[in-house]
């Protein structure tokens, strides 16, 4: 069962792995990108329902990735993953069109719940 296609953009292997181990058993199809440019390149090639992007990354940060996605692929939802959460960056992300944000370290359940919430609203 394929519940949806998700792209995870994070420079940390363990975060990508955590996402994959939490969400794949739930029936989501996951692809991984190590940074912003790589993720955007993958978005050029195929369509994703949801992008989980880290906020702080070398080369290109999550806000920039979010901006580009919302400009080029407005139908793709974005959830910001951040270990450096502040109210203002969260507000900024939401204003720029992010669906939600999730704080690191997250539990599999909280990640699953956030992602499920995205798809529930998408599928309405």
């Amino acid at each position, binding site marked *: 069962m394929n519940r949806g296609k998700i792209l995870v953009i*994070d420079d*940390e292997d*363990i*975060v990508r*792995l*955590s996402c994959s*181990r*939490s969400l794949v058993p739930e029936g989501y199809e996951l692809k991984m990108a190590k940074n912003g440019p790589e993720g955007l390149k993958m978005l050029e090639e195929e369509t994703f329902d949801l992008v989980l992007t880290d906020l*702080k990354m070398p080369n290109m940060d999550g806000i920039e990735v979010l901006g580009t996605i919302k400009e080029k692929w407005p139908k793709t939802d974005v959830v910001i993953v951040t*270990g*450096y*959460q*502040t*109210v*203002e960056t969260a507000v900024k992300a939401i204003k720029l069109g992010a669906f939600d944000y999730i704080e*690191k*370290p*997250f*539990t*599999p*359940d909280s*990640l699953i719940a956030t992602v499920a919430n995205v798809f529930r609203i998408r599928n309405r």
Partner: protein
Amino acid sequence: MLVNKSLQSLTGKLIFAIGTLMIAGSMLFWLFLFKYQEKELIDSSVKYGNSFVDFIKNSTRYAMLTAHGTLIQQTVEAIGGAEGIMNVRIFNRTGKVIYSADKKHIGTQLDKGSSLCITCHTASGPVKETPSWKIRKGEQDDYRVLNIVQPIYNQPDCYTSSCHAHPREQRVLGIVEADLSLELLDHSIKQQGIAITVYVLAFSIVISGTLCIILWNFVSTPVTMLAQGMRRVAAGDLDFKININRKDEIGELANTFNAMSDELRKAKNELMEWGNTLEKKVQEKTEAIHRAQQQLIHSEKLASLGRMAAGVAHEINSPLTGIVTFGHLLQKKFPQGTEDREDIDVIIDQANRCSNIIKGLLGFARATTAEKDQTNINDVLNSTLNIVKNKADFFNIKLSTNLDPSLGMIKADAPQLQQVFLNMIVNAADACEGKGTITITTSKVNDNGQDYAQVEFRDTGYGIKDEDLEKIFEPFFTTKPVGKGTGLGLAVSHGIIQDHGGKITISTKIGEGTSFFIWLPALKETA
């Protein structure tokens, strides 16, 4: 030395000047008086001398007309023997002494150039026929002698008498000379001179003495008092007063001096008062600077600690995500109640604890980088309440607000304020242990002329113990169970509020609850 000093004083100089003038004046007066008296006495002596010579001429007239030489000589001798008469001589036309009281002189011939001849004759000129007199020194040099010379004129009796001794053409027949002693006169002049000198000296002494007393009382004493007063005032004794109750210039000077020392005393007091205030102000300022410095050091410390914390937190969050995720995944593989499951639960609990510590550290990291803007406290409170409202921890807690709508704007970093308010609300909820009431009240207060916006967070919890109150704002101080609190919340809040120029105060009662008051300086309302 003393004389020199006395002469240098004002009184000394005045006495010296006036004394010198007095003595000079007295001496001139004395000289004038003395000379005048002497002249008067000599004039009367000359007058008397001339009368005396007239008397000789008259006494011998008859004898001369009758050519009784012996009688003439006897008369001259008799007259010449009287007291005060030194000598009487009668010369003929050729300058030969023919009669003399002192017989030794009879027959002596005067030289034409002799002083006696010159009184009447010039060297070759005509004969002066007027009587003359001169004063010369006596033989013993102890008194003077008045020498009177009178010509004997040819008269009708002379050239008509039977002896026919003189022709009619002759005008002067001879000379009568008399030397009169001026001993009595000199004695009298001397006595008078002494008397005048004594009078003048006595007068000078009396005047000088009176002058001294006057000057001493009216000038020297007050001037000395003034000088003494000035020394006292110069030495700092500004209460010193000069007691001179006079209406003259000295009295006026003393009054002016007293007024001056009064003014000086007032000025000194003012200066001292000012100095004291200044000292106090400097002390206050120094303390303020010290506090600011401490705050700055603290802020710097926190900032660098914050940067490090942020870096560490960011680096640790990702591996922690792995631990939490895989912990949870493993957890599901072991049934509840087994030992393996319990071990995994411990791993997850500790990972969560790490996560909380990191959140605290991140809050700490942000405490020093405020971007202040005009902020409405009520708005920030409302948005904070929206965050917590739906959290499970607040399900059984009543959140009550009493916000003053007229509360003015403040200059603040809204996200930081929200962090503080969130801390306060979470702490209040923890204190309530899941049930009770949290009341949030905003109001305007004024302290020392400064307007503040006050936010009160009141809970109905268990209150704070006195020993905990002292340490409540210290970093890593917490009364919460291990793993529940990091002890950073209030430290961070305190830092943020201080950075905003405000303060946090606490009012608590064990068993009844606690109120946290946050004061933030209100912006001055612009018209």
